[in-house]
């Protein structure tokens, strides 16, 4: 049962092939047996999952079932869940039971989904390897010595390992697409503002976006149908109609123009990786798509700009973690200064501290113009690159990562090396555009992802293009070899 997609489970539940309680129990058993080696869950909410499953079965029996009734899934531990531990992968929140549900969580609950628990992640979503979690690193199900990517490493690994058919995730600089690529699953980061951020613990507010990790584009469309939409509680969410994302999955892509940015196919990308991506593009050409070379000339500025803007925002966003009202508090503080210093010193990990320091520096009096303001100007240039490109093409494609999954510990000594993991993904967050990672090949038996980049609010086209590719190939159906 564990390799079924959301769509298949939804159909099976409707057909009565098995009940929600049965599949929920089955998956919970699989998690309890196998997750000790993967470490994708921080919290398994077994009791709650079973009661949700029973309620879903009862609703179905009463004739009140929708596509999601009784379908199991799990949430990245960045989403607040009422009465359930919500840690964000940090010691700082290791005792924090959120008193409310994030809007995304509420939407899945209302849709009748069954949540199995909370998924591991890099602390406060800062990282590209899931080695920055207070709850320990997550192993890649394809090779347990390798990282699953990050920060949504738990979400990607849990789906790849067959613990859940789909998981929520978030992407601030590549945190959905990169782990999806490294774990051989499908990851969608929607347009900034498409999904409510309410209840999603903020890392960098102007870049953070909730999204999906699933096996297939079709499943991503089903998750989007639940998650997308305006939320009055999030001023940055956009009030705009939400299409039925499943309705256009099978549209023909004949005549679709694919832009290939020169800057994404240079030396940073190994020949092996490049070959896999080029093969995937060739597949699209077979389906009638046209290919056009384009240029995104400011691509090289994306990482520097990101590492000013994101730390600046995080330096303020994480100030509320002060040991006063919730979260970790040091023992016997002697005064308020001591309480702040030790609570935060003990509660945050190295990478989080590094980014708070960088951000505080960038925002300091006398440095603001040179760093933060300049970075915002660069951000506009990067966005303009895409706006110009989309005048000529319908979709942009390229690699997701420069390499397949790397070994644990391989990049931990050099933060900049780690930051380069996001070289192809980070620009989209700065521009606010939607992007998707679709399994498209393998190098040394490790999955490789193809990145699809869409125009603003053009998620339906990404899902359509992803689905058509998955109809023609079977990379998304490959089972991990390490579990």
């Amino acid at each position, binding site marked *: 049962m564990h390799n079924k997609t959301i769509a298949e489970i939804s159909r099976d539940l409707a057909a009565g092939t098995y009940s929600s309680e049965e599949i929920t129990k089955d998956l919970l058993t699989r998690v309890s047996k196998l997750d000790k080696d993967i470490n994708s869950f921080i919290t398994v909410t077994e009791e709650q999952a079973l009661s949700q499953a029973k309620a879903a079965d009862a609703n179905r029996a009463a004739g009140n079932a929708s596509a999601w009734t009784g379908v199991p899934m799990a949430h990245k531990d960045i989403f607040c869940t009422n009465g359930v531990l919500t840690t964000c992968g940090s010691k700082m929140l290791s005792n924090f039971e959120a008193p409310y549900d994030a809007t995304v969580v509420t939407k899945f609950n209302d849709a009748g989904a069954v949540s199995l628990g909370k998924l591991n992640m890099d602390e406060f979503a800062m990282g590209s390897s899931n080695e920055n979690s207070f709850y320990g690193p997550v192993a890649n199900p394809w090779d347990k010595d390798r990282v699953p990517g990050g920060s949504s490493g738990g979400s990607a690994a849990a789906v790849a390992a067959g613990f859940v058919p789909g998981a929520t995730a978030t992407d601030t600089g590549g945190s959905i697409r990169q782990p999806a690529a490294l774990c051989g699953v499908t990851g969608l980061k929607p347009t900034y503002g498409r999904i409510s951020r309410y209840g999603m*613990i903020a890392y960098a507010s102007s870049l953070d976006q909730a999204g999906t990790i699933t096996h297939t584009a079709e499943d991503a469309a089903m998750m989007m149908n639940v998650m997308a939409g305006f939320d009055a*509680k999030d001023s*940055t969410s956009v009030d705009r109609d939400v299409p039925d994302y499943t309705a256009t999955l099978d549209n023909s892509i004949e005549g679709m123009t694919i832009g290939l940015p020169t800057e994404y196919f240079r030396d940073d990308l190994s020949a092996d990786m490049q070959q896999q991506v080029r093969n995937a593009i060739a597949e699209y050409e077979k389906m009638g798509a046209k290919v056009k070379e384009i240029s995104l000339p400011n691509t090289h500025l994306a990482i520097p700009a990101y590492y000013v803007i994101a730390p600046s925002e995080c330096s303020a966003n994480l100030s509320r*973690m002060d040991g*006063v*009202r919730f979260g970790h508090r040091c023992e016997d503080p002697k005064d308020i200064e001591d309480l*702040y210093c030790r609570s935060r010193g003990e509660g945050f990990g190295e990478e989080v501290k590094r980014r708070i320091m960088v951000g*505080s520096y960038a*925002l300091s009096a006398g440095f*603001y113009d040179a760093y933060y303001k300049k970075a915002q100007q660069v951000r506009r240039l990067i966005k303009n690159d895409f706006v110009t490109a989309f005048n000529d093409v319908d979709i942009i494609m390229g690699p997701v990562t420069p390499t397949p999954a790397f070994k644990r510990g391989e990049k931990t000594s050099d933060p900049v090396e780690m930051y380069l993991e996001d070289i192809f993904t980070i620009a989209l967050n700065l521009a606010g555009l939607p992007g998707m990672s679709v399994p498209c090949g393998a190098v040394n038996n490790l999955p490789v992802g193809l990145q699809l980049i869409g125009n603003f609010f053009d998620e339906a086209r990404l899902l359509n293009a992803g689905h058509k590719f998955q109809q023609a190939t079977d990379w998304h159906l490959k089972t991990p070899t390490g579990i």
Partner: protein
Amino acid sequence: MEWEVVIGLEIHAQLATKSKIFSGSSTAYGAEANTQANAVDLGLPGVLPVFNEEALRMAVKFGLAIDAEIGMKSVFDRKNYFYPDSPKGYQTTQLHHPIVGMGHIDIELENGESRRINVTRAHLEEDAGKSVHEGFDGMSGIDLNRAGTPLVEIVSEPEMRTAKEAAAYFKKMHSIVTYLGICDGDLSQGSMRCDCNVSLRPKGQEEFGTRTEIKNVNSFRNVERAINTEIQRQMDILEDGGSITQETRLYDADKDETRSMRSKEVENDYRYFPCPDLLPIIIDQEYVDAIKATLPELPDAKKARFQSEHGLSLMDAAVLSSDRQLADYFEAAANISGDYKIAANWVMGDVSAALNRLEISISELPVTAEQLGRLLSLIKDNTLNNGGAKEVFNALLDGKGTDGAEGVDALVDSLGLKQVSDTGAIEEIVAQVLADNPKLVEGYLATPEEKRGKAMGPFIGLTRKAAKGVNPQVVMDVLKQKLSEL
């Protein structure tokens, strides 16, 4: 050396919205600690602010009232600092793009002149919570009920030169925000607080001296006292050849002294940057015009009208227009009676005295404007004399009588205060008085002609004693007549 004093004020006024600036919690004062603080106010992980548009409307109203530029695009910034009553670790405020730009108000000086004070800007921001240091065994408690209450911070140009001017400016701002109904103006509850920036420079010097900031002064009187105390302190230092440290000071009203709170060197770098959780506020002229149409008559306009329409003196008009409720009360009573001068005298006299004595506001006064108007009408048509009217007024203050104008009439009857103006009746009383006091009459007749006016006094007193409520003018006339006939 002769010194020139330079004063600038930063006034924080709590906006009278029902809910907070970024959350749905109530802003009501005085609730049990932390009962008006939801997840957003507590700054829990994951929560987001949603801007309360009512606060915007009120801030624009204020901007229009002080003839200021309105920020058609205003932006919220985060001001970063750690303090336990600041739950997010930053205050959401407006640094570079405030909602209200340069404006001005006129203040009245004691010599009857008015002076224009420019207002640099006014911006929207959130109030902090409160730290409570008593009753927690040496620890501190945090009450976040106030956290997130909307504020406008009104920043003046450093244009005031005396503590009296500063107090007059604070008073005028109080008058304007309460007129607009955007702030309840309750100083004792901290609805309006004032930070005073004070510096001295040698007379004639252009460059400003080093300033100190006296934080959170919360009464008109204390603004004046605190500034005067601080001027003296700075002057003493400068006269001794010392220099002023730029710092924040607190005013201790009991000791009438200011003392250092923290010096500027150790103050935070606030690391302002635009709040990414809130969109810039964009408004258009239509929006501004619609608010403009709702502006009430403001204190200066009312003052001018009281002078031109009702013939009041500048000082009377200024006093009566300073408080909107007092002005409304005055005007309602005057309109009923038709006599604005008497109404002005009464409101500034007996009414104000009663308010001070009872320590209540005009809205709590037991005598309604309708009742005062009726009372004044009765004076005007000679039904009551002034003494009788005071007696009725005091009875109403004591809660006697019934509601409305009828209540006044009933009291006049029951107290037997109706003034007797009937000449025939008064003639009888006067005749009786003269008959009962032959010695006084003799004395009067022995008085030389030119001193007889004064000698009439005892007869007036006796007549009025004999019959309460006799019209004193009629008594005079009748007495003169009767005595001349003797």
